[in-house]
């Protein structure tokens, strides 16, 4: 195994581990989602780069590019849907104004 692809694999796996540790350690739901949604996505990107360097066949590189594009598209959508759906069921530290509830009551702000 070449050094470059090995470093990519180790750093990507370390990002997945960091996401897991953040999921355990962070205090409230949105912080946990922040840790679980972003870090493993970048980890998958790095690991896919390392695997594409090491394997090198055409079919593997094509599949890995497809996997990375799908993950980059679907991970933020899933995280957004989950956090929006569950905002009434978890305790969240808000700022002064809850803009989503305000928009739902008053209609969207006039531009």
């Amino acid at each position, binding site marked *: *195994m070449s050094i470059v*692809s*090995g*470093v990519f*694999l*180790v750093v*990507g*796996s*370390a990002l*997945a*581990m*960091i*996401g*897991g*540790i953040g*999921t*355990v350690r962070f205090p409230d*739901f949105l912080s*946990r*989602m922040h840790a*679980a*949604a972003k870090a*493993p*996505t970048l*980890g*998958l990107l790095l*690991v*896919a780069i*390392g*695997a594409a360097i*090491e*394997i090198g*066949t055409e*079919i*593997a590189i094509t*599949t*890995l590019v*497809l*996997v990375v594009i*799908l*993950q980059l598209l*679907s*991970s933020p*959508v*899933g*995280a957004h*849907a*989950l*956090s*929006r*759906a*569950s905002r*009434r*069921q*978890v305790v969240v530290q808000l700022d002064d104004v809850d803009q989503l509830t305000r928009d739902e009551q008053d209609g969207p702000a006039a531009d």
Partner: protein
Amino acid sequence: MIEASLVMLFIGAGCFMYRLLRGPSLPDRVVGVDGLLSTIVIAIVVVATDKHSGLTVETVLVAVLVGFVGTTALSRFIERRGD
């Protein structure tokens, strides 16, 4: 380096499994499932790199799509069940 990667992925999967089992609310458990599936996807890519197998990589495509559909469906379920 494969061994170091797999050890770190094992630790991360254990952390996500802790959140899946202990999570005080249902959305926390969904976060645990999502992260666990992402960790499994990364582990499959690492093993495919070890075996130099292009065919093993194709499994990952299915896993990513199943993870997206699962998270979205569970979030719709949570929203509809809401108080």
